[in-house]
Protein backbone atom coordinates (compact mmCIF):
# COMPACT_ATOMS: atom_id res chain seq x y z
CA UNK A 1 0.00 0.00 0.00
CA UNK A 2 1.24 3.45 -0.80
CA UNK A 3 1.90 5.85 2.04
CA UNK A 4 -1.31 7.83 2.67
CA UNK A 5 -1.18 11.59 2.94
CA UNK A 6 -1.84 13.09 6.35
CA UNK A 7 -5.14 14.54 5.16
CA UNK A 8 -6.34 11.17 3.99
CA UNK A 9 -5.23 9.59 7.24
CA UNK A 10 -7.12 12.18 9.24
CA UNK A 11 -10.17 11.64 7.09
CA UNK A 12 -9.98 7.88 7.60
CA UNK A 13 -9.73 8.35 11.32
CA UNK A 14 -12.84 10.55 11.35
CA UNK A 15 -14.67 7.93 9.30
CA UNK A 16 -13.55 5.20 11.64
CA UNK A 17 -14.72 7.15 14.67
CA UNK A 18 -18.06 7.86 13.07
CA UNK A 19 -18.52 4.26 12.03
CA UNK A 20 -17.69 2.94 15.48
CA UNK A 21 -21.18 3.98 16.65
CA UNK A 22 -22.90 1.62 14.24
CA UNK A 23 -20.37 -1.19 14.24
CA UNK A 24 -21.34 -2.66 17.58
CA UNK A 25 -23.78 -4.89 15.73
CA UNK A 26 -21.29 -7.62 14.72
CA UNK A 27 -20.23 -7.96 18.34
CA UNK A 28 -23.82 -8.50 19.40
CA UNK A 29 -24.32 -10.96 16.57
CA UNK A 30 -21.59 -13.28 17.79
CA UNK A 31 -22.52 -13.04 21.48
CA UNK A 32 -24.87 -16.08 21.48
CA UNK A 33 -22.37 -18.27 19.65
CA UNK A 34 -19.40 -17.08 21.67
CA UNK A 35 -21.11 -17.66 24.99
CA UNK A 36 -21.96 -21.21 23.95
CA UNK A 37 -18.40 -21.81 22.78
CA UNK A 38 -17.07 -20.34 26.01
CA UNK A 39 -19.08 -22.79 28.09
CA UNK A 40 -18.71 -25.89 25.95
CA UNK A 41 -15.18 -25.53 24.58
CA UNK A 42 -13.12 -22.91 26.37
CA UNK A 43 -14.14 -23.77 29.92
CA UNK A 44 -13.32 -27.49 29.45
CA UNK A 45 -10.14 -26.52 27.63
CA UNK A 46 -8.88 -24.58 30.64
CA UNK A 47 -10.10 -26.93 33.37
CA UNK A 48 -9.12 -29.98 31.33
CA UNK A 49 -5.56 -28.73 31.25
CA UNK A 50 -5.59 -28.37 35.03
CA UNK A 51 -7.03 -31.88 35.39
CA UNK A 52 -4.21 -33.25 33.27
CA UNK A 53 -1.72 -31.89 35.80
CA UNK A 54 -3.48 -33.64 38.70
CA UNK A 55 -4.02 -37.27 39.61
CA UNK A 56 -7.74 -36.89 40.23
CA UNK A 57 -10.73 -39.17 39.68
CA UNK A 58 -14.33 -38.44 38.78
CA UNK A 59 -15.11 -37.69 42.42
CA UNK A 60 -11.88 -36.28 43.82
CA UNK A 61 -9.72 -33.50 42.53
CA UNK A 62 -6.54 -35.27 43.52
CA UNK A 63 -3.13 -33.69 44.03
CA UNK A 64 -1.08 -31.54 41.75
CA UNK A 65 1.47 -33.78 40.06
CA UNK A 66 2.90 -31.51 37.37
CA UNK A 67 3.86 -33.18 34.12
CA UNK A 68 3.86 -36.69 35.60
CA UNK A 69 0.81 -37.81 33.61
CA UNK A 70 2.40 -36.69 30.36
CA UNK A 71 5.76 -38.25 31.16
CA UNK A 72 4.08 -41.51 32.17
CA UNK A 73 2.46 -41.65 28.73
CA UNK A 74 5.85 -41.72 27.04
CA UNK A 75 6.60 -45.15 28.49
CA UNK A 76 3.02 -46.45 28.46
CA UNK A 77 2.75 -49.16 25.83
CA UNK A 78 -1.03 -48.67 25.52
CA UNK A 79 -0.46 -45.00 24.69
CA UNK A 80 2.32 -45.70 22.23
CA UNK A 81 0.21 -48.31 20.52
CA UNK A 82 -2.78 -45.97 20.30
CA UNK A 83 -0.51 -43.31 18.83
CA UNK A 84 0.65 -45.80 16.23
CA UNK A 85 -2.88 -46.99 15.50
CA UNK A 86 -4.22 -43.43 15.22
CA UNK A 87 -1.54 -42.65 12.65
CA UNK A 88 -2.08 -45.87 10.72
CA UNK A 89 -5.84 -45.42 10.87
CA UNK A 90 -5.66 -41.80 9.66
CA UNK A 91 -3.20 -42.47 6.84
CA UNK A 92 -5.11 -45.50 5.54
CA UNK A 93 -8.48 -43.78 5.91
CA UNK A 94 -7.27 -40.69 4.05
CA UNK A 95 -5.69 -42.50 1.14
CA UNK A 96 -8.30 -45.24 0.96
CA UNK A 97 -11.26 -42.91 1.00
CA UNK A 98 -9.54 -40.49 -1.37
CA UNK A 99 -8.73 -43.22 -3.88
CA UNK A 100 -12.24 -44.71 -3.79
CA UNK A 101 -13.84 -41.26 -3.77
CA UNK A 102 -11.79 -40.03 -6.72
CA UNK A 103 -12.48 -43.16 -8.77
CA UNK A 104 -16.20 -42.90 -8.16
CA UNK A 105 -16.23 -39.14 -8.79
CA UNK A 106 -14.54 -39.70 -12.15
CA UNK A 107 -17.09 -42.40 -12.93
CA UNK A 108 -20.07 -40.27 -11.94
CA UNK A 109 -18.71 -37.38 -13.97
CA UNK A 110 -19.43 -39.39 -17.13
CA UNK A 111 -22.74 -39.13 -18.91
CA UNK A 112 -25.07 -42.12 -18.39
CA UNK A 113 -28.64 -42.89 -17.26
CA UNK A 114 -29.71 -42.62 -13.59
CA UNK A 115 -26.45 -40.92 -12.67
CA UNK A 116 -28.10 -38.63 -10.12
CA UNK A 117 -29.87 -41.53 -8.48
CA UNK A 118 -26.65 -43.52 -8.17
CA UNK A 119 -24.91 -40.52 -6.68
CA UNK A 120 -27.52 -40.36 -3.93
CA UNK A 121 -27.24 -44.13 -3.35
CA UNK A 122 -23.49 -43.85 -2.93
CA UNK A 123 -23.92 -41.29 -0.16
CA UNK A 124 -25.78 -43.77 2.04
CA UNK A 125 -22.73 -45.04 3.99
CA UNK A 126 -21.99 -41.48 4.99
CA UNK A 127 -25.43 -40.38 6.16
CA UNK A 128 -26.65 -43.33 8.20
CA UNK A 129 -26.03 -43.35 11.97
CA UNK A 130 -22.65 -44.82 12.92
CA UNK A 131 -24.34 -47.45 15.07
CA UNK A 132 -26.33 -48.70 12.07
CA UNK A 133 -23.27 -48.96 9.86
CA UNK A 134 -21.44 -50.82 12.59
CA UNK A 135 -24.31 -53.27 13.10
CA UNK A 136 -24.51 -53.92 9.38
CA UNK A 137 -20.75 -54.51 9.19
CA UNK A 138 -20.66 -56.65 12.27
CA UNK A 139 -23.35 -58.74 10.67
CA UNK A 140 -21.19 -59.12 7.57
CA UNK A 141 -17.89 -60.03 9.25
CA UNK A 142 -18.70 -61.25 12.77
CA UNK A 143 -16.81 -64.32 13.98
CA UNK A 144 -19.38 -67.10 14.19
CA UNK A 145 -22.65 -65.53 13.13
CA UNK A 146 -21.45 -63.13 10.43
CA UNK A 147 -22.64 -63.55 6.85
CA UNK A 148 -19.13 -64.05 5.49
CA UNK A 149 -18.43 -66.92 7.87
CA UNK A 150 -21.88 -68.47 7.37
CA UNK A 151 -21.19 -68.56 3.64
CA UNK A 152 -17.68 -69.92 4.18
CA UNK A 153 -19.06 -72.65 6.39
CA UNK A 154 -21.37 -73.80 3.62
CA UNK A 155 -18.30 -74.33 1.48
CA UNK A 156 -16.64 -76.13 4.35
CA UNK A 157 -14.07 -73.40 4.83
CA UNK A 158 -12.99 -72.38 8.30
CA UNK A 159 -14.15 -69.14 9.86
CA UNK A 160 -12.09 -65.99 9.41
CA UNK A 161 -11.85 -64.02 12.64
CA UNK A 162 -12.00 -60.48 11.30
CA UNK A 163 -12.90 -58.85 14.60
CA UNK A 164 -11.17 -60.96 17.21
CA UNK A 165 -7.60 -61.30 15.99
CA UNK A 166 -5.44 -58.22 16.30
CA UNK A 167 -4.18 -57.60 12.77
CA UNK A 168 -7.47 -58.51 11.13
CA UNK A 169 -9.40 -56.29 13.53
CA UNK A 170 -7.17 -53.33 12.69
CA UNK A 171 -7.76 -54.03 9.03
CA UNK A 172 -11.53 -54.29 9.50
CA UNK A 173 -11.78 -51.04 11.43
CA UNK A 174 -9.86 -49.25 8.67
CA UNK A 175 -12.05 -50.74 5.94
CA UNK A 176 -15.23 -49.67 7.71
CA UNK A 177 -13.78 -46.18 8.18
CA UNK A 178 -13.01 -45.94 4.47
CA UNK A 179 -16.51 -47.17 3.71
CA UNK A 180 -17.99 -44.48 5.92
CA UNK A 181 -15.80 -41.64 4.61
CA UNK A 182 -15.42 -42.11 0.85
CA UNK A 183 -18.80 -40.50 0.01
CA UNK A 184 -17.61 -37.18 1.39
CA UNK A 185 -14.50 -37.32 -0.80
CA UNK A 186 -16.56 -38.40 -3.79
CA UNK A 187 -19.06 -35.58 -3.38
CA UNK A 188 -16.44 -32.86 -2.97
CA UNK A 189 -14.30 -34.10 -5.86
CA UNK A 190 -17.33 -34.53 -8.12
CA UNK A 191 -18.31 -30.91 -7.46
CA UNK A 192 -14.83 -29.77 -8.45
CA UNK A 193 -14.79 -32.00 -11.54
CA UNK A 194 -18.03 -30.47 -12.76
CA UNK A 195 -16.47 -27.01 -12.79
CA UNK A 196 -13.71 -28.00 -15.24
CA UNK A 197 -14.12 -26.31 -18.60
CA UNK A 198 -14.76 -29.12 -21.10
CA UNK A 199 -13.14 -27.21 -23.96
CA UNK A 200 -9.82 -27.78 -22.22
CA UNK A 201 -10.18 -31.51 -22.88
CA UNK A 202 -11.11 -30.88 -26.51
CA UNK A 203 -8.05 -28.70 -26.94
CA UNK A 204 -5.99 -31.40 -25.33
CA UNK A 205 -7.39 -34.04 -27.69
CA UNK A 206 -6.63 -31.88 -30.71
CA UNK A 207 -3.07 -31.63 -29.47
CA UNK A 208 -3.01 -35.44 -29.50
CA UNK A 209 -3.02 -36.19 -25.81
CA UNK A 210 -4.30 -39.50 -24.53
CA UNK A 211 -6.64 -40.09 -21.62
CA UNK A 212 -3.92 -40.41 -19.05
CA UNK A 213 -2.27 -37.24 -20.25
CA UNK A 214 -5.47 -35.23 -20.09
CA UNK A 215 -6.03 -36.51 -16.56
CA UNK A 216 -2.46 -35.75 -15.63
CA UNK A 217 -2.34 -32.24 -17.10
CA UNK A 218 -5.94 -30.98 -16.74
CA UNK A 219 -7.95 -32.93 -14.19
CA UNK A 220 -5.34 -33.44 -11.53
CA UNK A 221 -3.99 -29.86 -11.39
CA UNK A 222 -7.58 -28.67 -11.18
CA UNK A 223 -8.26 -30.88 -8.17
CA UNK A 224 -4.96 -30.30 -6.44
CA UNK A 225 -5.87 -27.48 -4.04
CA UNK A 226 -9.14 -29.09 -3.02
CA UNK A 227 -7.41 -32.43 -2.58
CA UNK A 228 -4.93 -31.03 -0.11
CA UNK A 229 -7.73 -29.50 1.95
CA UNK A 230 -9.63 -32.80 1.82
CA UNK A 231 -6.60 -34.81 2.93
CA UNK A 232 -6.02 -32.56 5.92
CA UNK A 233 -9.69 -32.50 6.88
CA UNK A 234 -10.01 -36.25 6.63
CA UNK A 235 -6.84 -36.70 8.68
CA UNK A 236 -8.31 -34.54 11.43
CA UNK A 237 -11.64 -36.34 11.33
CA UNK A 238 -9.96 -39.75 11.39
CA UNK A 239 -7.76 -38.88 14.35
CA UNK A 240 -10.90 -37.61 16.10
CA UNK A 241 -12.98 -40.66 15.22
CA UNK A 242 -14.31 -42.50 18.23
CA UNK A 243 -17.35 -44.30 16.92
CA UNK A 244 -15.85 -46.53 14.23
CA UNK A 245 -13.28 -48.32 16.41
CA UNK A 246 -15.25 -48.18 19.65
CA UNK A 247 -18.53 -49.50 18.32
CA UNK A 248 -17.00 -52.05 15.98
CA UNK A 249 -14.46 -53.67 18.28
CA UNK A 250 -14.64 -51.73 21.54
CA UNK A 251 -10.94 -51.02 21.03
CA UNK A 252 -10.11 -54.70 21.28
CA UNK A 253 -8.93 -57.40 20.89
CA UNK A 254 -6.47 -56.59 23.68
CA UNK A 255 -6.57 -52.87 22.77
CA UNK A 256 -5.26 -53.46 19.25
CA UNK A 257 -7.77 -51.09 17.65
CA UNK A 258 -7.63 -48.44 20.33
CA UNK A 259 -6.89 -44.98 18.96
CA UNK A 260 -6.08 -41.91 21.07
CA UNK A 261 -9.72 -40.93 21.54
CA UNK A 262 -10.82 -44.41 22.60
CA UNK A 263 -7.85 -44.57 24.96
CA UNK A 264 -8.75 -41.21 26.53
CA UNK A 265 -12.33 -42.45 26.91
CA UNK A 266 -11.26 -45.74 28.48
CA UNK A 267 -8.81 -44.14 30.90
CA UNK A 268 -11.35 -41.56 32.04
CA UNK A 269 -14.64 -43.38 32.08
CA UNK A 270 -13.57 -46.98 32.65
CA UNK A 271 -10.44 -46.66 34.75
CA UNK A 272 -11.57 -43.45 36.47
CA UNK A 273 -8.15 -41.90 35.87
CA UNK A 274 -9.08 -38.36 34.87
CA UNK A 275 -5.50 -37.08 34.93
CA UNK A 276 -4.18 -39.56 32.35
CA UNK A 277 -7.36 -39.37 30.28
CA UNK A 278 -7.18 -35.60 29.88
CA UNK A 279 -3.44 -35.82 29.24
CA UNK A 280 -4.09 -38.16 26.30
CA UNK A 281 -6.83 -35.82 25.07
CA UNK A 282 -4.43 -32.87 25.23
CA UNK A 283 -1.75 -34.73 23.31
CA UNK A 284 -4.40 -35.41 20.66
CA UNK A 285 -5.30 -31.73 20.58
CA UNK A 286 -1.67 -30.74 20.10
CA UNK A 287 -1.29 -33.18 17.22
CA UNK A 288 -4.49 -31.85 15.67
CA UNK A 289 -3.39 -28.25 16.17
CA UNK A 290 -0.28 -28.96 14.14
CA UNK A 291 -2.51 -30.31 11.38
CA UNK A 292 -4.84 -27.31 11.73
CA UNK A 293 -1.96 -24.87 11.30
CA UNK A 294 -1.03 -26.75 8.17
CA UNK A 295 -4.59 -26.26 6.90
CA UNK A 296 -4.65 -22.56 7.77
CA UNK A 297 -1.32 -21.97 6.05
CA UNK A 298 -2.51 -23.86 3.02
CA UNK A 299 -5.60 -21.66 2.91
CA UNK A 300 -3.69 -18.41 3.11
CA UNK A 301 -1.41 -19.65 0.35
CA UNK A 302 -4.46 -20.52 -1.74
CA UNK A 303 -5.98 -17.10 -1.11
CA UNK A 304 -2.82 -15.33 -2.15
CA UNK A 305 -2.66 -17.22 -5.45
Amino acid at each position, binding site marked *: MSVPTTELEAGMRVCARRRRH*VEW*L*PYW*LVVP*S*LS*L*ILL*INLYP*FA*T*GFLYSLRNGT*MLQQGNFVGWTNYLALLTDSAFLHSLFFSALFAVCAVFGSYAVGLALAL*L*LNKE*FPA*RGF*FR*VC*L*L*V*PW*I*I*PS*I*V*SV*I*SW*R*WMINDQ*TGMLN*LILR*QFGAGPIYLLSTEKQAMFSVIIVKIWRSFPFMML*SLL*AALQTIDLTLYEACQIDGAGRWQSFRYITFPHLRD*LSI*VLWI*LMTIWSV*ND*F*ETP*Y*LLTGGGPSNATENL*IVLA*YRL*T*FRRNDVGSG*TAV*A*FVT*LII*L*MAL*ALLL*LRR*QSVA*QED
Partner: protein
Amino acid sequence: MNVSKQTRRQLTRWGLFLFTLVIVIVVNLPIISLVINSLRTTTEILSERGFWPSHPSLINYYYVTERTQFWVFFRNSVVVALTGTVICIFAACLGGFALSRFRIRLTRSYSSLLLMLQMFPIILALIPLFILFKALGLINTYFSVIIIYAVAQLPFATWMFRSFYDAIPIDLEEAAQIDGCSRLQSFRYVILPLCSAAFAAVTIFAFLFNYNEYLIANIFLRSESTMTIPVGIQMFMQQYGSDIGNLMAAATLAMIPTFILFLFVQRYMLCTAIGGAVKG
Protein backbone atom coordinates in the same frame (compact mmCIF):
# COMPACT_ATOMS: atom_id res chain seq x y z
CA MET B 1 -21.27 -44.75 -40.18
CA ASN B 2 -23.00 -42.08 -38.14
CA VAL B 3 -25.54 -44.61 -36.84
CA SER B 4 -22.94 -47.08 -35.64
CA LYS B 5 -21.15 -44.30 -33.79
CA GLN B 6 -24.39 -43.43 -32.06
CA THR B 7 -25.08 -47.04 -31.11
CA ARG B 8 -21.60 -47.30 -29.75
CA ARG B 9 -22.22 -44.27 -27.60
CA GLN B 10 -25.46 -45.76 -26.38
CA LEU B 11 -23.64 -48.98 -25.56
CA THR B 12 -21.01 -47.11 -23.55
CA ARG B 13 -23.72 -45.26 -21.67
CA TRP B 14 -25.56 -48.43 -20.71
CA GLY B 15 -22.29 -50.20 -19.99
CA LEU B 16 -21.42 -47.43 -17.54
CA PHE B 17 -24.93 -47.69 -16.12
CA LEU B 18 -24.53 -51.41 -15.42
CA PHE B 19 -21.04 -50.98 -14.03
CA THR B 20 -22.18 -48.26 -11.63
CA LEU B 21 -25.23 -50.31 -10.65
CA VAL B 22 -22.96 -53.18 -9.62
CA ILE B 23 -20.76 -50.80 -7.61
CA VAL B 24 -23.77 -49.25 -5.88
CA ILE B 25 -25.04 -52.70 -4.89
CA VAL B 26 -21.64 -53.87 -3.64
CA VAL B 27 -21.07 -50.69 -1.65
CA ASN B 28 -24.50 -50.86 -0.06
CA LEU B 29 -24.44 -54.61 0.45
CA PRO B 30 -24.09 -54.41 4.26
CA ILE B 31 -27.14 -52.15 4.44
CA ILE B 32 -29.22 -54.09 1.91
CA SER B 33 -28.41 -57.33 3.67
CA LEU B 34 -29.28 -55.80 7.04
CA VAL B 35 -32.70 -54.65 5.86
CA ILE B 36 -33.55 -57.95 4.14
CA ASN B 37 -32.44 -60.06 7.08
CA SER B 38 -34.44 -57.96 9.51
CA LEU B 39 -37.45 -59.74 7.97
CA ARG B 40 -36.17 -63.13 9.19
CA THR B 41 -36.13 -64.56 12.66
CA THR B 42 -32.71 -65.02 14.21
CA THR B 43 -32.80 -68.80 13.71
CA GLU B 44 -33.69 -68.31 10.04
CA ILE B 45 -30.86 -65.80 9.62
CA LEU B 46 -28.37 -68.37 10.87
CA SER B 47 -29.77 -71.35 8.97
CA GLU B 48 -31.28 -70.14 5.68
CA ARG B 49 -29.14 -70.08 2.59
CA GLY B 50 -30.98 -67.92 0.07
CA PHE B 51 -30.71 -64.19 -0.22
CA TRP B 52 -34.45 -63.61 0.12
CA PRO B 53 -36.24 -64.76 3.29
CA SER B 54 -38.49 -67.78 2.66
CA HIS B 55 -41.05 -66.58 5.20
CA PRO B 56 -40.65 -62.82 5.47
CA SER B 57 -42.27 -61.54 8.64
CA LEU B 58 -42.33 -58.42 10.75
CA ILE B 59 -41.94 -60.36 13.98
CA ASN B 60 -38.65 -58.61 14.84
CA TYR B 61 -40.25 -55.23 14.31
CA TYR B 62 -43.14 -56.25 16.50
CA TYR B 63 -40.73 -57.27 19.24
CA VAL B 64 -38.60 -54.12 19.01
CA THR B 65 -41.50 -51.69 19.00
CA GLU B 66 -43.72 -53.46 21.53
CA ARG B 67 -41.38 -55.15 23.98
CA THR B 68 -38.51 -52.70 24.21
CA GLN B 69 -38.08 -49.04 25.03
CA PHE B 70 -37.58 -48.20 21.36
CA TRP B 71 -40.21 -45.45 21.23
CA VAL B 72 -38.84 -43.89 24.40
CA PHE B 73 -35.40 -43.79 22.76
CA PHE B 74 -36.98 -42.34 19.65
CA ARG B 75 -38.75 -39.61 21.58
CA ASN B 76 -35.53 -38.78 23.47
CA SER B 77 -33.60 -38.59 20.21
CA VAL B 78 -36.11 -36.24 18.64
CA VAL B 79 -36.33 -33.96 21.68
CA VAL B 80 -32.57 -33.74 22.16
CA ALA B 81 -31.67 -33.39 18.48
CA LEU B 82 -34.41 -30.87 17.75
CA THR B 83 -33.79 -28.58 20.73
CA GLY B 84 -30.05 -28.66 20.12
CA THR B 85 -30.71 -27.76 16.50
CA VAL B 86 -32.96 -24.82 17.37
CA ILE B 87 -30.38 -23.28 19.69
CA CYS B 88 -27.63 -23.89 17.15
CA ILE B 89 -29.63 -22.33 14.30
CA PHE B 90 -30.43 -19.26 16.35
CA ALA B 91 -26.77 -18.64 17.23
CA ALA B 92 -25.48 -19.60 13.78
CA CYS B 93 -27.83 -17.43 11.71
CA LEU B 94 -26.67 -14.36 13.64
CA GLY B 95 -23.00 -15.34 13.66
CA GLY B 96 -23.11 -16.18 9.96
CA PHE B 97 -24.50 -12.72 9.24
CA ALA B 98 -21.63 -11.11 11.12
CA LEU B 99 -19.14 -13.18 9.10
CA SER B 100 -20.82 -12.35 5.82
CA ARG B 101 -21.39 -8.60 6.17
CA PHE B 102 -18.72 -7.29 8.51
CA ARG B 103 -15.17 -7.87 7.38
CA ILE B 104 -13.41 -6.66 10.51
CA ARG B 105 -10.80 -8.10 12.82
CA LEU B 106 -13.48 -9.59 15.09
CA THR B 107 -15.08 -11.64 12.36
CA ARG B 108 -11.74 -12.79 11.01
CA SER B 109 -10.67 -14.10 14.40
CA TYR B 110 -14.13 -15.55 14.96
CA SER B 111 -13.82 -17.41 11.67
CA SER B 112 -10.46 -18.87 12.73
CA LEU B 113 -11.94 -19.82 16.09
CA LEU B 114 -14.67 -21.78 14.34
CA LEU B 115 -12.06 -23.55 12.26
CA MET B 116 -10.12 -24.42 15.41
CA LEU B 117 -13.30 -25.83 16.93
CA GLN B 118 -13.47 -28.30 14.05
CA MET B 119 -10.12 -29.68 15.21
CA PHE B 120 -11.07 -29.76 18.88
CA PRO B 121 -11.22 -33.40 20.02
CA ILE B 122 -14.69 -33.52 21.53
CA ILE B 123 -13.54 -35.97 24.21
CA LEU B 124 -11.40 -33.18 25.66
CA ALA B 125 -14.53 -31.08 26.19
CA LEU B 126 -16.56 -34.00 27.46
CA ILE B 127 -14.36 -35.01 30.41
CA PRO B 128 -14.46 -31.66 32.27
CA LEU B 129 -18.09 -31.14 31.28
CA PHE B 130 -18.96 -34.56 32.67
CA ILE B 131 -17.39 -33.64 36.00
CA LEU B 132 -19.11 -30.25 35.98
CA PHE B 133 -22.52 -31.61 35.01
CA LYS B 134 -22.19 -34.40 37.53
CA ALA B 135 -21.61 -31.85 40.28
CA LEU B 136 -24.65 -29.91 39.08
CA GLY B 137 -26.81 -33.06 38.88
CA LEU B 138 -27.24 -32.73 35.11
CA ILE B 139 -26.21 -36.26 34.10
CA ASN B 140 -29.14 -38.11 32.51
CA THR B 141 -30.89 -34.87 31.68
CA TYR B 142 -31.66 -33.67 28.16
CA PHE B 143 -30.07 -30.31 28.91
CA SER B 144 -26.52 -31.70 29.15
CA VAL B 145 -26.64 -33.16 25.65
CA ILE B 146 -28.70 -30.39 24.06
CA ILE B 147 -26.22 -27.67 24.95
CA ILE B 148 -23.27 -29.68 23.61
CA TYR B 149 -25.12 -30.55 20.39
CA ALA B 150 -25.83 -26.86 19.85
CA VAL B 151 -22.10 -26.11 19.85
CA ALA B 152 -21.03 -29.24 17.99
CA GLN B 153 -22.98 -28.19 14.89
CA LEU B 154 -22.20 -24.48 15.24
CA PRO B 155 -19.17 -24.19 12.92
CA PHE B 156 -20.77 -25.94 9.98
CA ALA B 157 -24.13 -24.18 10.44
CA THR B 158 -22.45 -20.77 10.68
CA TRP B 159 -20.48 -21.41 7.49
CA MET B 160 -23.56 -22.57 5.66
CA PHE B 161 -25.51 -19.47 6.67
CA ARG B 162 -22.58 -17.32 5.71
CA SER B 163 -22.44 -18.76 2.21
CA PHE B 164 -26.18 -18.25 1.79
CA TYR B 165 -25.93 -14.62 2.95
CA ASP B 166 -22.94 -14.07 0.68
CA ALA B 167 -25.15 -14.96 -2.27
CA ILE B 168 -27.65 -12.20 -1.43
CA PRO B 169 -26.66 -8.83 -2.96
CA ILE B 170 -25.90 -6.19 -0.37
CA ASP B 171 -27.89 -3.64 -2.43
CA LEU B 172 -31.11 -5.08 -1.05
CA GLU B 173 -30.11 -4.22 2.49
CA GLU B 174 -28.85 -0.79 1.49
CA ALA B 175 -32.19 -0.08 -0.17
CA ALA B 176 -33.99 -1.07 3.03
CA GLN B 177 -31.68 1.13 5.05
CA ILE B 178 -32.39 4.11 2.81
CA ASP B 179 -36.06 3.44 3.49
CA GLY B 180 -35.31 3.83 7.19
CA CYS B 181 -34.58 0.29 8.37
CA SER B 182 -31.81 -0.26 10.89
CA ARG B 183 -29.14 -2.80 10.01
CA LEU B 184 -30.81 -5.37 12.24
CA GLN B 185 -34.26 -4.65 10.82
CA SER B 186 -33.00 -5.04 7.27
CA PHE B 187 -31.53 -8.38 8.33
CA ARG B 188 -34.79 -9.46 9.92
CA TYR B 189 -37.19 -8.26 7.19
CA VAL B 190 -35.08 -8.48 4.04
CA ILE B 191 -32.41 -11.15 4.44
CA LEU B 192 -34.08 -13.77 6.58
CA PRO B 193 -37.22 -14.15 4.41
CA LEU B 194 -34.94 -14.68 1.43
CA CYS B 195 -33.13 -17.55 3.14
CA SER B 196 -36.07 -19.67 4.21
CA ALA B 197 -34.86 -22.56 2.05
CA ALA B 198 -31.41 -22.21 3.60
CA PHE B 199 -32.97 -22.29 7.02
CA ALA B 200 -34.78 -25.50 6.25
CA ALA B 201 -31.64 -27.11 4.84
CA VAL B 202 -29.34 -26.17 7.72
CA THR B 203 -31.97 -27.21 10.23
CA ILE B 204 -32.36 -30.64 8.68
CA PHE B 205 -28.59 -31.15 8.45
CA ALA B 206 -27.98 -30.17 12.04
CA PHE B 207 -30.86 -32.38 13.10
CA LEU B 208 -29.45 -35.32 11.14
CA PHE B 209 -26.00 -34.98 12.66
CA ASN B 210 -27.47 -34.75 16.15
CA TYR B 211 -29.80 -37.65 15.57
CA ASN B 212 -26.91 -39.84 14.39
CA GLU B 213 -24.53 -38.80 17.17
CA TYR B 214 -23.28 -41.46 19.57
CA LEU B 215 -20.30 -40.42 21.74
CA ILE B 216 -21.82 -37.41 23.53
CA ALA B 217 -25.15 -39.11 24.15
CA ASN B 218 -23.35 -42.22 25.36
CA ILE B 219 -21.47 -40.27 28.02
CA PHE B 220 -24.30 -38.14 29.35
CA LEU B 221 -27.44 -40.23 28.87
CA ARG B 222 -27.03 -43.51 30.75
CA SER B 223 -30.54 -44.23 32.02
CA GLU B 224 -33.03 -46.00 29.77
CA SER B 225 -35.57 -43.22 30.15
CA THR B 226 -33.27 -40.59 28.64
CA MET B 227 -31.19 -42.62 26.15
CA THR B 228 -31.18 -41.68 22.48
CA ILE B 229 -31.54 -44.25 19.70
CA PRO B 230 -27.82 -44.85 18.99
CA VAL B 231 -27.10 -45.41 22.69
CA GLY B 232 -30.19 -47.58 23.07
CA ILE B 233 -29.26 -49.73 20.09
CA GLN B 234 -25.73 -50.11 21.36
CA MET B 235 -27.25 -51.34 24.62
CA PHE B 236 -29.35 -53.84 22.64
CA MET B 237 -26.15 -54.95 20.94
CA GLN B 238 -24.59 -55.75 24.32
CA GLN B 239 -27.71 -57.25 25.88
CA TYR B 240 -28.96 -59.45 23.09
CA GLY B 241 -25.86 -59.69 20.96
CA SER B 242 -26.90 -63.13 19.81
CA ASP B 243 -30.40 -62.00 18.88
CA ILE B 244 -29.37 -60.35 15.64
CA GLY B 245 -32.86 -60.39 14.16
CA ASN B 246 -34.15 -57.84 16.65
CA LEU B 247 -30.95 -55.84 16.41
CA MET B 248 -31.35 -55.58 12.64
CA ALA B 249 -34.97 -54.49 12.95
CA ALA B 250 -34.01 -51.79 15.46
CA ALA B 251 -31.17 -50.60 13.21
CA THR B 252 -33.47 -50.48 10.18
CA LEU B 253 -36.07 -48.47 12.09
CA ALA B 254 -33.36 -46.07 13.27
CA MET B 255 -32.33 -45.40 9.66
CA ILE B 256 -35.78 -44.47 8.39
CA PRO B 257 -35.93 -40.86 9.69
CA THR B 258 -32.38 -40.31 8.41
CA PHE B 259 -33.34 -41.42 4.91
CA ILE B 260 -36.51 -39.36 4.74
CA LEU B 261 -34.79 -36.17 5.89
CA PHE B 262 -31.78 -36.83 3.71
CA LEU B 263 -33.91 -36.91 0.57
CA PHE B 264 -35.04 -33.35 1.27
CA VAL B 265 -31.54 -31.95 1.62
CA GLN B 266 -29.36 -34.06 -0.63
CA ARG B 267 -29.04 -31.29 -3.19
CA TYR B 268 -27.63 -28.99 -0.51
CA MET B 269 -25.13 -31.66 0.49
CA LEU B 270 -22.34 -29.99 -1.42
CA CYS B 271 -22.52 -26.76 0.58
CA THR B 272 -21.85 -28.62 3.80
CA ALA B 273 -19.26 -30.85 2.27
CA ILE B 274 -16.79 -28.21 1.23
CA GLY B 275 -18.35 -24.87 2.15
CA GLY B 276 -16.74 -24.70 5.53
CA ALA B 277 -13.47 -26.21 4.50
CA VAL B 278 -12.58 -23.97 1.64
CA LYS B 279 -13.80 -20.67 3.03
CA GLY B 280 -11.57 -18.86 5.49
